[in-house]
């Protein structure tokens, strides 16, 4: 079969090009819709968790934590201080804000029922009767589509009381965020869900002990949930076989940038980055210069390093990460300093500002890159960028500071000559490009 993988078949995107694929009727008629739920409800919760564990499904949000293991961390019968039972919550993280990542939106607009079914199965598996779908503030259309899909599922009896006569109740609530990248971090998401400032929480306690509204909660990505019905319906072996030894199934890769066919592709994980670029129609308008393999936070790879497989472990070995599956391709017309500055502006704007290093460091880095672009840089700055990144990475509550240092540090390390050229020639003007826009105009409120 295609992609050098005899076991591969699309798990999520099989029907996304057909008209009406987002409706419940299409899902029931063509995609064996809610059959997996029927099967799961006849199983014991622990068996469902075991099935997901064996499938090697890993979280598709960025960190790649094994989903089955995350579900098994949920306490069986949590009680409060007075001995009364506490509710458990299942939360879907649909705060897809990573630059270069747009896979979850495809699921929301084309096959929302797959995710809903996955959530109901997840609710059954962890013993939760309530699920929240946290949607990023900018997704007006997507949240309406999701609400419509949920209403349809209620009408058909897949949500609500006594689902399919099993005695299991499950409710789903759509919650819109207010527009913050950091709310994609699970504890910041929980704070935002509670109506607080979207700032990551100090861990421990982890969400499995103290989550949404102080109750045990489990947060999973949209794509993770969307893969669950397939695992239950087709069996874990089939799903696990598609992937690598330590990570089962397929991945949605959003290819963007200088390729001829930018889109979301569902691919097996044994492909190299070069092969994926080939599938996406090849590099457009020049030669390949470098890629960002897993959304903006992943360290860059040069063209020479693109012969690496895209599973979690191979990318980690290459010094970068699979992240959220956004592959940004850059050809040789791109100025890396300018491209990195664009990302740093984003991070400067999106740091929640709790931890000293991240708040001040993201700001400092962005301004430093801006100065270099405008001809004010010197050689010492390049060493200092590494020093700033060293003081930021791994020192904060969440991984945001590490995300900032990903592009900043890798760009200086791998494309140092471009920085030096800018410094020697006096910025973008010196190499015949337009001067970068004023720093003050960049989303700053002061």
């Amino acid at each position: 079969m295609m992609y050098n993988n005899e076991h591969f078949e699309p798990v999520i995107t099989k029907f996304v090009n057909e008209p009406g694929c987002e409706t419940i009727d299409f899902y029931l008629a063509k995609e064996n819709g809610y059959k997996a739920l029927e099967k799961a409800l006849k199983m014991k919760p622990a068996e469902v968790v075991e099935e997901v564990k064996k499938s090697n499904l890993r979280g598709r949000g960025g960190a790649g934590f094994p989903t089955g293991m995350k579900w098994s961390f949920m306490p069986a019968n949590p009680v409060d201080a007075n001995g009364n039972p506490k509710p458990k919550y299942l939360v879907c993280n649909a705060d897809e804000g990573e630059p270069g990542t747009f896979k979850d939106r495809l699921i929301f607009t084309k096959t929302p029922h797959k995710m809903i079914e996955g959530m109901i199965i997840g609710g059954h598996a962890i013993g939760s009767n309530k699920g929240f779908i946290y949607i990023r503030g900018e997704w007006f259309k997507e949240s309406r589509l999701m609400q419509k899909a949920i209403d349809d599922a209620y009408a058909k009896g897949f949500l609500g009381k006594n689902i399919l006569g099993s005695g299991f109740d499950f409710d789903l609530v759509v919650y819109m965020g207010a527009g913050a990248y950091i709310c994609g971090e699970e504890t910041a998401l929980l704070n935002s869900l509670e109506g607080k400032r979207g700032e990551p929480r100090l861990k421990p306690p982890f969400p499995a002990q103290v989550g949404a509204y102080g109750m045990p909660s489990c947060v999973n990505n949209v794509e993770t949930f969307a893969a669950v019905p397939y695992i239950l319906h087709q069996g874990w072996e089939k799903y696990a076989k598609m992937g690598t030894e330590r990570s089962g199934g397929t991945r949605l890769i959003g290819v963007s940038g200088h390729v001829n066919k930018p889109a979301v592709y569902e691919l097996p994980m044994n492909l190299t980055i070069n092969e994926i670029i080939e599938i996406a129609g090849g590099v457009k308008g020049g030669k390949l210069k470098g890629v960002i393999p897993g959304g903006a936070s992943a360290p860059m790879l040069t063209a020479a390093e693109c012969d690496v497989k895209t599973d979690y472990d191979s990318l980690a070995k290459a010094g970068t990460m699979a992240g959220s599956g956004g592959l940004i391709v850059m050809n040789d017309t791109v100025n890396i300093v300018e491209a990195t500055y664009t990302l740093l502006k984003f991070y400067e704007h999106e740091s929640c500002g709790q931890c000293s290093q991240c708040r001040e460091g993201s700001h400092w880095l962005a301004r430093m890159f801006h100065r270099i672009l405008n001809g004010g840089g010197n050689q010492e700055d390049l060493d200092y960028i590494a020093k700033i990144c060293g003081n930021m990475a791994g020192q904060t509550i969440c991984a945001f500071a590490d995300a900032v240092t990903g592009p900043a540090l890798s760009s200086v390390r791998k494309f140092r000559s471009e920085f030096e050229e800018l410094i020697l020639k006096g910025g973008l003007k010196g190499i015949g490009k337009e001067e970068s826009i004023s720093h003050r105009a960049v989303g700053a409120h002061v």
Partner: protein
Amino acid sequence: MSNITEFDIKKPKVDLNYASDKKPVHSDPNPEAKPLPKVTIDGKTYDFKPGDTIMQVAERYKVHEEIPRYCYHPGMPIAGTCRMCTVEVEKAPKLMTSCSTPAADGMVVHTRSDKVMKSRTGVMEFLLTNHPLDCPVCDKAGECELQDYNYEYGPGTSNFKEEKRVFEHATTKKLSDKVTLNMNRCVHCERCVRFTDDVTKTNDLVMVNRGWHKELEATTEAGLTNEYQGCLTDFCPVGALTWNDFRFKKRSWFLNRKPSLCDGCSKGCNIEVHSDSEIVYRYVPIYNELVNGHWMCDAGRSSYTSYTNPLRVIAPLMKHNDALHSTSIQTLLTDLQVHLKNAASIQLVVGTDATREEAALLKEKVPTIIGKNIAVSYFNGTNGVQTSADDKKLDELLKMKDLTPNTKGVEEQGLSPLANGEVNADIAILFRNGRAGIPKMKADQKVVLWGIWSQDELKSFPSKNILGVIAGLATIEKEGSYKNADGIVQKFHPAITHKGGALSAHQVVGVWKTLN
């Protein structure tokens, strides 16, 4: 609390987790039953109670001077955001915040390893990038944690060549009549926000915006409204929040710092009196777990002004030709003795702001010296409070209804409250220290005023009725003890030396005795 009888007020001993809501999830229900677990910090092994954080253990055993911190405050929930208190824990991949990480049995911690010091230097450099470094004109200079920690951990130099962040509209912003904000100096520790959220529960303050332009603002247009705003300026680690009353009055390094008690209500908050050349500039609270925790109210903090009031009588006054003239204590007492010996009936009213020692002394000695049977009673004078039974808490924190410091201590002397708050004698000796009320008098009753009186208060008596005024010492000027509303007896010593002609009750009684 009842078994605690007496203790001296001390400098703060930091015992943590005072109001923290982030206790570890699984705390040991019965820690005493087993041998205590042990943690190794900087090469030495210490016992700890399950649930203690690394910082608590280090603090208790004084492992080093201090683990530096900005966001952490023992009276508030743990935030763990400033990242200044990180320590190296063996086998942990990253540095851990000592304020939030519970100590575990067998854990090996290094609080000053190279990795830790490098991280702290990094944090200091980041915090200083956008700090204006306007120490010469900053009121916090000298008692600023940013200065102190920079001296110890800071990088010394910085490569920051960018423009600094400036909050133009919040460089001198009044958050209320009492507190001024300079946002440029803020290091975003958010102690202030957590204080209004979790301690006063008034939710006065909030951070708006995000990241580097995150800014502190009052939640309502009224600004700060809570009664404990002064505390914000105490624990603000930098000069972002400053106390208007103290702002630009004195450099902090000129201040003498002596412990004393606030006598503004029956709580008896422990304070530090900050003075220079015996002039008081401010009160700040000091930690006492049993009494006031870390805090004190704004009314108490501002009460130092009553002792520096220019109208306070600070010399003995004697009546001569229906007017009061300053004189020596001997002359005054000789004159008073004549009046008192001739009086048909005398009543001694002790205000509940007298110290325990003063109350005992007056009750015992004054009748003997005058040589007559004298009715002795006490008077509180706070609206609605006659005895300590009428006292109650006004809020969840510290404020009490009884505005005198020693009602319980005076009651202890076996005195009875002044019936109906009225004096029933020809001559009344009113002893009070400016906090207790003034009893009702009849038009022709003569009075001898003793203690702390202001000229305004003298005017409440017909001038022909005042036989004399014996000027006394204030709480911060004298020695003694108060018994607070919870029955805790607290001793105090002079924090400043009185420079006027006022005398302590013991000195007055001593002189009086020699005149007989």
